[in-house]
């Protein structure tokens, strides 16, 4: 077995594992795990309407940010 096979396998698996770790850390930082009960309940209520609502909410926040922006 050549050395490069080990290098490739190691770096490949560590890279994939690293992505999963970074995704998890992003979730923790974002507060997605702050309220475990809500996090679990979210799966029950997950539907198209709520996704739509979430998108609209993002838009609304952007608009409000523009509106309430006052240069010092």
């Amino acid at each position, binding site marked *: 077995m050549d*050395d490069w096979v*080990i*290098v490739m396998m*190691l*770096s490949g698996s*560590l890279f994939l*594992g690293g992505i999963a*770790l970074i995704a*998890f*850390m992003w979730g*923790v*930082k974002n507060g997605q*795990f*702050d*309220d*475990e*009960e*809500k996090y679990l*309940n979210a799966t*029950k*209520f997950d*539907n*198209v*309407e709520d996704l739509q*609502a979430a998108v609209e*909410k993002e838009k*609304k*926040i952007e608009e*409000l*940010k523009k*509106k*309430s*922006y*006052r240069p010092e």
Partner: protein
Amino acid sequence: MLKSIKNSKKIDYKENLKLSNKIICSHCHLEFSKDVMIVDGSHYFCCNGCQGVFHLLSDEGLDSFYAKTGDVKLSPQTAQYEDSSNFNALAFYDKFVKINSDGFSEVSLIIEGIHCSACIWLNEKALDKMEGVVEANINFTNNKATITWADSVVKLSQIIDMIRAIGYNAYPYDASLQEVHANKERKDYYLKMSVAIFASMNIMWIAVAQYAGFFSGMEQGVKTILNIAEGILATPVLFYSGWVFFRGSYYGLKNRVVNMDLLVATGASLTYIYSIFITISGKGEAYFDSVSMIITFVLIGKFLEVISKKNAADTLDIIGKHLPSEVNVIQNEKIVSLKLEDVLVGDIIVVSSGEKVLLDGLIVQGEGSFDESNLTGESKAIYKSLGDKVVSGTISIDADIHFKATRDFEHSTLSNLVSLLETAINKKPKIEQLANKLSEHFSTTILSLSVLTFFVWWFWPHSFEESLMVGISVIVIACPCALGLATPVATLVGLNLGAKKGILFKEAAQLETMAKVDLLLVDKTGTLTVGKPQVIKEERFDGFNINMLYSLVKSSKHPISTGITNYLENSKESINEILFNEFSQIAARGIVAKYNDIEVIGGNKKLMNEHNIEHQYESDKSLFYVAIDKKIVAIYELSDSIKDGAKELVSSLSKINIETIMLTGDHKKSAQKVAKTIGIENIHYELSPEDKLTLVEEFQKEGKVIVMVGDGVNDILALGRADIGIVMGSGSDIAVDVSDVVLLNNSLHSLLAAFKISDTTFKLIKQNFAISLVYNAITIPLAMAGYVIPLVAALSMSFSSLLVVGNSMRIKYKINRK
């Protein structure tokens, strides 16, 4: 598809209603008979409030709420609230509203009336739909909400109105820095631990390959590749996850203390540097696995300590809830709301029935009874009229009065109580932990031994590399993991076991403190006794009528009446309830009623004297006289029964040298009687809450470590000040908040179990230290002599940690055997 399922559910639900012939309110889901319901198309409502909320939700397109709630019952929408425009006051904004980095306003609220996850959904959706609300985030676990909004578009009062309109209420709390800080710290640990655990797990499987190669032979090229991979993984563990140890050792050195952080930091970083050196030179064995293992294990130990600390901020939030911030004051013949702090001495304040008195003063108009149990523990209502003194913290039961403030809020009784409480919590003496004391010496010793080993090897002609490796191996093998895990694992097992037995320790360190206790102070009523008087003796005379007596006592909620009602119900005599023509309760006296011109009077000695009824009966217990037409027909003697296990508690504690002293607000005779039955020698009676506090402080000055057990608001000062405050789960909210340990099942057996658990846990912690010290005493000399090969070092390090964890598990067996 989803919608059709929801609709079919609704139809089933309505079918059920019709079949059962009972009508369920379409909003709150409570059952009512059909004739009291408001009919609105195909819907039925129990009240206008529910109807209003139902229509509001349909208009806003939020009616899928009902599919989400299922059969959960809500509170009907009936409550009346103070004007929400108060929330727009400048003073309110100053105190509670913060401006975030995007320029939006932010407030922290506690939402009342949340039953289920659908309620959270509804609140968040309803607020999100409002123009100007940026974000509403409600935590299901503690019902705390963070709401962000653009103040130029919508005002806070409109947001509060929306929450109220959909059937909930909200009150603000100060999300003090402390809580924010505690949450941030916890999150930080999560992140650090996830990196450390991820890297360690990966390093371990690479290390397995290396260990296999150590015995079966491995090419240097492959070895270097594995070392590099381990090195890459160990780097974030050391510098990101392990940062707390570098910081800890820096602050330690600044204060001239050698702590365990320094040992971990030097051990890990020297091993790391050495391993890099080995990887580059291609000779010897690298120890990257040890670097990440040490950091990960000790970090987990540290994390366990962080999460077991109680959140003092929550306590003060709840007390804040008990203090409304405004009072109604008469100014220029008009009633205006003033902030508590703005009320001056001499202002006339209006209090209606059911309201809390927030300032001290003298009544200038009106009369009625007050509940002073908050302050005195006295459960009887106290009647007050013109010229009498009202005290802050008491509650008006039926009095509508005007009173003149005699002290401003800052100097009021209530405010004094709160500030006393805050200092009591903060002044709690902290016993220095054994772990810190031990690890300080341990760290210094190991570091000096390692340096010594290095120099001895170097001067005893060996190569620099070899001497360095032996020196480092001393630090690596002197496993701080076992020492770091000794306390947290054992306390966690202890806390868990306590929780299973209905004992909630709010902080891990309390197990240790409780194991050192030498004095138990215990409240009488509700703690040693049940708090519900029972009939122990009955005497009946001519003219006795059980139907009249039963109907008389049944209509009163006083504990004595309840005691007699229960006694009569259990007597198995046939009883027919009658209806009185006239009926009145006289506070602190008894009950007077009339049935077809027959006068029935039931009550204490004072009531009999007032009605000129002759009686000759004395007792040290509570007496209840019954008179029909001015003639005594029965006498009941009642006494509060002592809780199961009280005697056993006192005798078991005296065996392990813990003295028990009883404190009570009750009078001498009744205190002595209870004490004699249980076997308590020392009692203090007729005590006010402040007296109890003073006693605790006096005992502490004598150097005693004190456990205080109580249940009422009148115990809170002592509970807060004692080294360990234990409260019965049935106790009042504030008492539960200030205490350190809660006995959920109110049982004295649990109290004894709490002592046993803490004692055993503390013993096992000491054993754990002994194990890790013995381990070090054996392995360190071997390492110094250069006999430790990498495999043994790694294995023995994990083994010592496992030994400590395994030993901690023994707490369960020890307690169950006792």
